[in-house]
């Protein structure tokens, strides 16, 4: 249980973050303000927001658990699995979307291919975000119960009210600006565990010495690059093909929650710079989420469940006050992900489904109200489904697996759409749907123990192959169907200018 001073820290954080978020409500007067902050955000705020949107409290527990079991190779996800993709996003994709003036990535896919591709991509993200909200709310309840002694329902409602109020009134601006504060709190709280833990382990040298002395099974614990035939989920082949080439690009370039805040920056330079700031801060994430697992391994070897590593460390090492700070950091990570998912899902619903298929040409204020209504509906949905997570322990894994179903195929459509003028609307649709079908098929076969893959959890390989199948189908079907005119593709494919007559607006990609 937390002590008195810890309670003060946590309550002060909750109240402070709600007041800060509400302050930004005064700037929201239209759909543009609500969804894209009126294109006014500075690069530093967006860069910091990208980092905390990507990292949630689950990462502290999950990644620490994986580093406890498999060592530092899990750090590949935030290093090789992020930085090259973020550079690619910064210099090629984000400027393109920013200039195109789109609100969502599916909106671009709709313009480039057809409404079918837009609807499939948008619905996949909406389903993923909506169900993930339930998991995140339940994670809040699980965190509050042992430390604050709060009933799970009470914890869920408190989290929903705090996040919901500022996201409802303040839109994306409130989300991003609270994310800035949340990133600072998350970094300070996480660093407290690492510093105290390393001190107890005798510094970095002591940590390496203790773990290396544990025997042959731990000899690769400090190797980022694992052999291709490793039994861990991180063989270098999976890291290169599945993570670096597909998943990281699909995430940093195709994820609405990440890209939307870059589209809300005040200029093209700010859009590019925001991704680079995000890449810089992202490189520190493994230190915060991976080191606690290594420190726990040195201090408490032989734990049956690696996911207990982080909690055990906090319980045994941190003094009162610091525990409250860490808990606030945990909450910051959690709430920053919830608010981003809420706002991005509301944007996807309003722009890609409601405006496109249900009510066209309404006023900007009307769409802002629809976005706010969607935020409330999602909050209610998240709160109600949070209880489901309690009964289905595999919910979090299932939702993450669902994301690996569509990320690769959607990214293949994005890539071919931007760089290959010959890609047609039917190629795009068959590529996305066919790629998702192959992902589902692979996962079903893995569940049935078809011995298709040699590693424990082959999601990296499945992402790669679903991307390859999606791209292949797109190419084959495109070549069999009528090509689109240059007029239709202008401004949507690299080097095809928006205005064909004056040759203006071409992006040098």
């Amino acid at each position, binding site marked *: 249980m937390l002590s008195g001073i810890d309670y003060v820290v946590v309550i002060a954080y909750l109240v402070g973050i709600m007041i800060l978020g509400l302050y930004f409500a005064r700037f929201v007067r239209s759909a543009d303000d609500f969804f894209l902050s009126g294109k006014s955000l500075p690069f530093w705020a967006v860069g910091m927001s990208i980092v905390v949107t990507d990292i949630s409290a689950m990462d502290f527990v999950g990644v620490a658990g994986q580093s406890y079991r498999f060592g*530092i190779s899990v750090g590949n996800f935030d*290093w*090789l699995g992020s*930085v*090259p993709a973020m*550079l690619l996003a*910064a*210099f090629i994709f984000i*400027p393109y979307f920013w200039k195109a003036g789109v609100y969502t990535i599916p909106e671009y896919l709709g313009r480039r291919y057809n409404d079918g591709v837009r609807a499939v991509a948008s619905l996949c993200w909406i389903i993923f975000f909506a169900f993930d909200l339930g998991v995140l709310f339940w994670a809040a309840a699980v965190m509050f119960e042992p430390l604050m002694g709060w009933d799970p329902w009470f914890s869920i409602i408190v989290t929903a009210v705090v996040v919901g109020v500022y996201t409802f009134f303040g839109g994306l601006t409130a989300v991003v600006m609270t994310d800035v504060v949340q990133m600072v709190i998350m970094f300070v709280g996480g660093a407290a565990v690492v510093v105290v833990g390393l001190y107890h382990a005798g510094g970095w040298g002591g940590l390496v010495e203790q773990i290396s002395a544990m025997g042959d099974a731990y000899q690769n614990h*400090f*190797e*980022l*690059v*694992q*052999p*291709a*035939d490793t039994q861990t989920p991180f*063989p*270098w*082949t*999976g890291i*290169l*093909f599945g993570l*670096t080439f597909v998943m990281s690009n699909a995430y940093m370039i195709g994820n609405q929650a990440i890209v939307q805040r870059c589209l809300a920056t005040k*200029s*093209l*330079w*700010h*859009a*590019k*710079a925001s991704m*680079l*700031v995000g*890449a*810089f801060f992202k*490189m520190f994430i493994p230190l915060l989420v991976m080191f606690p697992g290594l420190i726990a391994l040195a201090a408490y070897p032989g734990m049956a469940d690696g996911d207990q590593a982080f909690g055990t460390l906090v319980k045994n090492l941190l003094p009162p006050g610091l525990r409250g700070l860490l808990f606030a950091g945990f909450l910051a990570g959690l709430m920053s992900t919830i608010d981003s998912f809420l706002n991005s899902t509301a944007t996807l619903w309003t722009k890609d489904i409601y405006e496109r298929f249900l009510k066209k040409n309404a006023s900007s204020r009307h769409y802002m109200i629809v976005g706010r209504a969607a935020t409330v509906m999602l909050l209610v949905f998240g709160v109600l489904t949070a209880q489901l997570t309690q009964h289905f322990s595999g919910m979090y894994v299932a939702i993450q697996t669902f994301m690996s179903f569509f990320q690769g195929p959607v990214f293949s459509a994005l890539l071919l759409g931007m760089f290959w003028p010959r890609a047609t609307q039917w190629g795009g649709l068959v590529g996305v749907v066919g790629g998702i079908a192959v992902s589902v098929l692979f996962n079903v076969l893995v569940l049935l123990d078809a011995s*298709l*893959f*040699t*590693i424990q959890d082959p999601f990296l*390989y499945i992402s790669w*192959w679903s991307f390859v199948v999606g791209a292949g189908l797109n190419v084959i079907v495109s070549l069999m169907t009528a090509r689109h005119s240059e007029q239709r593709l202008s401004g949507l494919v690299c080097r095809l200018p928006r205005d064909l007559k004056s040759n203006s607006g071409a992006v*040098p990609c």
Partner: protein
Amino acid sequence: MLNFEWLKGVSPAAAKGIFLGIFVVSGLLVLLIPKAYIYEGVESPRWWHNLKLWALGVLAIIFTIYSIF
């Protein structure tokens, strides 16, 4: 084929070389970006607006991490 068996003969040290190569190639590509494109959206460019420097800084850090581990 699904498990990339044909790459099992490649040692982790050689694989690390491939990873480091990705960072080097990324850096070279960053250097090739036209200056005008980098400063697009800036009214009066200063040296710190040069996003090539930012990108190269990030790549230098990650190159160092992979060189050590």
